[in-house]
């Protein structure tokens, strides 16, 4: 049987999650290629002994045959059978009348075989996000570990300074020495063990060679054994607490910038996914103890974690990283208590924003912050990003609507900030957590405020011949003492796109549209409408329509809410930026954006939360054309820099995440950033939670002294820096 080394490499790449354990900082892929070139120039490796080959093939066939059975057993939570299968295979080999070294050789081949098998499953599982598959693979890996341990419980292993192997059990009398080991038995066996371990942990590319063994560097075997232990422990933890969604993803692909764009487009997919998996595992019955155990374990073993809600974030804040465990909380989604007396709701963090509102609708209540992704985004994620929404001018953002959280810190400490009472004493830790983008702790419970629906809601659709006029109208409305429930501006390119897409019936001959929504009692709304009408006329509006009923009002919003999909329809790809500016600078900023659009050669459409100054330029590009992605990013960064220049901020509601991380220095100087990093230290002293997000990495290294920069090489070279 031939093992195609390139295929192996592709499969194994990125599966090394334990790189932190090796002191050896050498670049894996460089070594791999070098080793392959030197030892297997034909890029294939043969299994020598035909009998072994046959036996392995047979076993593999058996495994393949019972694959479905295994799958079914696992589905019914009975993966003990997989371990049994391994045990049986092992027993067979063990009891066969071949030499010890042959057995060992068989063992190694079996490992290779099974590892192949498990990795092809793994790849499939990751692509499908098939949780059950991943469980199965874990079971297989446990089996591999078992095989290794059994096969290498060899007597008399003196260990060339690299620690014991297995246990010194019964002395075996076989001293045959075949299968091409040139060195002595002891070191030969250790070598084989090392190879076997490497094939599972892939820290050392010497794994596949059966011939011409060389000495193992001291310490490597030890560290490999340690890695093995950790892996085993982790899988044990997983097996023990199987009902949660720990996802160890291969993130190499996902780190590409593509994914920040695709993240938005997979809103649909994520949502479908949840529905699909609804019946599989119900973790909502578990308490925070689960997360305490996970975080404690990871803290003790220096394993990094990325918490993730629904994954609808637009700045890559929950983006999985190659060397981090992804802690998915979207299934932790039960509403725990609805308290109309105290006007609050207590939920688990995975509950979606819209389902929160829907749960209290029947009594005429709702949850105010309503980001456009509310059908899918989780309340835990909302808190992490301090999400806003159309109505945030009047009703505030998430931070003004959260009453309390229960949070688990990286070292497993559980704390409650706030609660059903209106405010807390001491430092405003609740306020600090909101908008902390998953860097300070993992939320396990959330208490939010609910409001009574207003009696009457009406909207005005206003058209203007210039963006300046619409901006001035907004200023006048606010200086006039009116705080509408929502105000949105759309520029001409966006009007055209959404009108084509959603057929919202927008006027075609205007340069800008302003939607103003007013709520309150019936009479109050009518008064306000008249006032807004006057102000609009004063600002030369050329189109004015007032919603006669709820249906018409929703149709005004139809186009605006369809903005993103409309652009998605028009352009192969788009980047959505998120900067906040003083309202009165809108016209100026839009002019600059037009200039930049010409400079970078990319089209752009803008919508603007006129109520609070939050601007969303949508940069259109085609990722198939090389360099357009980079251009789009540069364009986006230029826009954000200009926003800061006119007195605004980098991000109003999408968060910094990875997307704007390196722009933080536009707004903050070294001391500001250091102060914030110090705050982070107070919560997470080892910086294991959501690393690489929000704060520029170089600052963290230099100051914290935590990262070893080896020969000028930064770690995780593969993580692109935008």
């Amino acid at each position, binding site marked *: 049987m031939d093992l195609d080394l390139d295929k192996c490499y592709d499969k194994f790449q990125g599966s090394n999650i334990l790189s932190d354990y090796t002191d050896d900082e050498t670049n894996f892929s460089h070594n791999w290629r070098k080793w392959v070139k030197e030892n297997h120039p034909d890029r294939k490796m043969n299994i020598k002994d035909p009998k072994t080959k046959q036996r392995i093939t047979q076993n593999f066939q058996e495994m393949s045959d019972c694959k479905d059975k295994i799958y079914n057993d696992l589905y019914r939570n009975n993966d003990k059978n997989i371990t049994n299968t391994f045990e049986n295979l092992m027993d067979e080999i063990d009891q066969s009348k071949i030499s010890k070294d042959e057995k060992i050789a068989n063992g190694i081949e079996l490992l290779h075989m099974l590892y192949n098998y498990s990795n092809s499953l793994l790849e499939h599982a990751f692509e499908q996000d098939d949780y059950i598959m991943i469980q199965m693979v874990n079971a297989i890996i446990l089996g591999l570990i078992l095989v290794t341990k059994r096969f290498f419980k060899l007597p008399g292993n003196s260990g060339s300074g690299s620690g014991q192997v297995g246990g010194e059990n019964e002395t075996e009398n076989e001293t045959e020495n075949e299968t091409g080991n040139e060195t002595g038995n002891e070191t030969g066996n250790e070598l084989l063990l090392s190879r076997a371990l490497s094939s599972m942990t892939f820290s050392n590319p010497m794994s596949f060679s059966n011939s011409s063994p060389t000495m193992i560097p001291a310490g490597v075997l030890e560290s490999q054994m340690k890695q093995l232990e950790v892996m085993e422990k982790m899988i044990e933890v997983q097996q023990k607490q199987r009902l949660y969604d720990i996802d160890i993803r291969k993130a190499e692909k996902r780190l590409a910038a593509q994914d920040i764009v695709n993240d938005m487009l997979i809103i649909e997919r994520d949502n479908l996914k949840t529905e699909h998996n609804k019946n599989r595992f119900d973790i909502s019955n578990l308490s925070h103890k689960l997360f305490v155990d996970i975080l404690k374990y990871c803290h003790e073993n220096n394993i990094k974690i990325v918490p993730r809600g629904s994954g609808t974030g637009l700045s890559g804040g929950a983006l999985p990283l190659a060397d981090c465990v992804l802690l998915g909380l979207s299934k932790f989604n039960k509403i725990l208590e609805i308290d109309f*007396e*105290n*006007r609050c709701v207590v939920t688990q963090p995975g509950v979606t924003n819209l389902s929160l509102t829907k749960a209290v609708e029947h*009594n*005429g209540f709702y949850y105010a912050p309503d980001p456009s992704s509310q059908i899918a985004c989780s309340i835990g994620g909302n808190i992490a990003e*301090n999400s*806003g929404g159309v109505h*945030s001018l009047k009703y505030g*953002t998430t*931070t*003004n609507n959260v009453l309390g959280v229960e949070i688990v810190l990286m070292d497993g400490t*559980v*704390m409650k*900030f706030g609660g059903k*009472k*209106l405010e807390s*004493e*001491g*430092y*405003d*830790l609740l*306020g*600090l957590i*909101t*908008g902390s983008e998953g860097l300070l702790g993992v939320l396990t419970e959330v208490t939010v405020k609910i409001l*009574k629906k207003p009696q009457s809601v009406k909207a005005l659709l206003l058209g203007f011949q210039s963006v300046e006029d619409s901006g001035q109208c907004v*200023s006048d409305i*606010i*200086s*006039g*003492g*009116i*705080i509408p429930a929502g105000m949105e501006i759309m520029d001409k390119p966006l009007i055209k796109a959404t009108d084509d897409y959603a057929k919202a019936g927008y006027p075609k001959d205007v340069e800008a549209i302003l939607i103003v929504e007013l709520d309150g*009692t019936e009479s*109050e709304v009518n*008064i*306000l409408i008249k006032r807004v009408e006057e102000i609009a006329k004063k600002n030369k509006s050329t189109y004015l329509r007032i919603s006669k009923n709820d249906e018409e009002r929703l149709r005004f919003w139809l186009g605006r809410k369809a903005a993103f999909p409309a652009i998605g329809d028009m352009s192969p790809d788009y980047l959505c930026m998120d900067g*906040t*500016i*003083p309202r009165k600078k809108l016209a100026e900023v839009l002019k600059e954006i037009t200039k930049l659009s010409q400079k970078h050669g990319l089209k752009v459409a803008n919508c603007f939360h006129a109520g*609070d*100054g939050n601007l969303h330029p949508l940069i259109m590009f085609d990722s198939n054309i090389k360099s357009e992605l980079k251009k789009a990013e540069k364009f986006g960064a230029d826009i954000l820099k200009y926003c800061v220049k006119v007195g605004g*901020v980098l991000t*109003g*509601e*999408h*968060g*910094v995440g990875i997307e*704007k991380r390196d722009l*933080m220095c536009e*707004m903050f100087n070294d*001391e*500001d950033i250091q*102060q*914030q990093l*110090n*705050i982070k*230290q*107070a*919560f997470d002293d080892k910086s294991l939670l959501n690393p690489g997000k929000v704060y520029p990495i170089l600052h963290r290294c230099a100051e914290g002294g935590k990262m070893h920069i080896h020969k000028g090489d930064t770690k995780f070279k593969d993580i692109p820096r935008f």
Partner: protein
Amino acid sequence: MREIYSPSSEHEVADFIKNCNSREIPIEIIGHNSKSIGRLIQCSKSLNLKNLSGIIEYFPEELYIKVKSGTPLDLIEKELDKKNQELSFEPSDMGFLYNGKSNKGSVGGAVACNLSGSRRFRAGALRDHILGFRGINGKGEIVKSGGTVVKNVTGYDVSKLITGAYGTLVALTEIVLKVQPKNEESQTLLVNNINLKKALNIFSKSMQTSVEISGACFYPAKMSKFFKLNDLDTTTSITAIRLEGPKISVVERVNTLKKLFDEYKKTISVLENYQSRIFWQNTTDLQFFNNSTNVVVKIILPPVNTDQFINKFENEELKYVVDWAGNLIWAEIPENDSVLLRQLRMEVIKLGGHMTIIKAPNHVRIKEDFLTIVDENIKVLSLKIKESFDPKKILNPGKMYSGI
């Protein structure tokens, strides 16, 4: 002899603190010295920020005002009033409580204490209105966060952290506050002579309608004697609900509530705009404890437990007023009754709330806990956060908790 240093610029503040940091000299930070709040601390040096005064930027149409931290609060409110705007969290004038006369203090002080008035349960507290700040941390470094816009998720929301931190994290030099348009009309619906339980019920019912109330307080009989309003009957308990907005809307909503509480129609009355404003101003300013020489505490509870709490201490010499629709109890107890103080605190904790000592004679401020510590982990975390700003603990050391 305490040395008082009164710098006039941010740089001077920074240098002063840097200096004290290197020599590990503790500093007490003072604004206008209007509130003797928090634990009693002794520092050899005192940093007085009253000269950092002035409005830096005010754009009514952008709904924010940027000021230097030592600016008198009433100066700011006067400026806002000219443009028909206000700070909707209604900062209290604590001067009456502490000294028997008006003294709103500095805006920095208001931020450091996070004191908000009666409208807080509707409009949010001061911490919901702070958009950004500049300050000097314990190492003498100038740090800033936030901006002038409402929507901002750039980095940690440090503005919230320093609000209510009583000067233990930074010495504030600049603050940006959100402003709102002033309400055209204010009216107050009064129901006399009902007990607390019924009052809380009224609050709850009102908040479950779309009427939008912006004030809800309860005065037991005898607590309201200080009022001098023609249309206010102070012989019995007073339950008051405030409605604000455009005049037509307010009138309509008052009528809606009147209909809703028809059962009390014999004792319902309404305060019109002028008197209504005075009523709430006096409530916010704690006029009922004017110049108290006893211990005044601020108790925050989930409103469903308020009645239970008050009933438990019915027989004690407990004077109280309930505000924030039942979320807040202001209480006064005799200054030497530390047993009662502790009992109160324990019961508050049991009912899921907390108690802050707002005013007390010095001997109490030394002995008793200023804030309620229920969870040791939070104290540990607070200490770490304190150290992240002020590793040598020189800014107002011990003002919030002993040891922090």
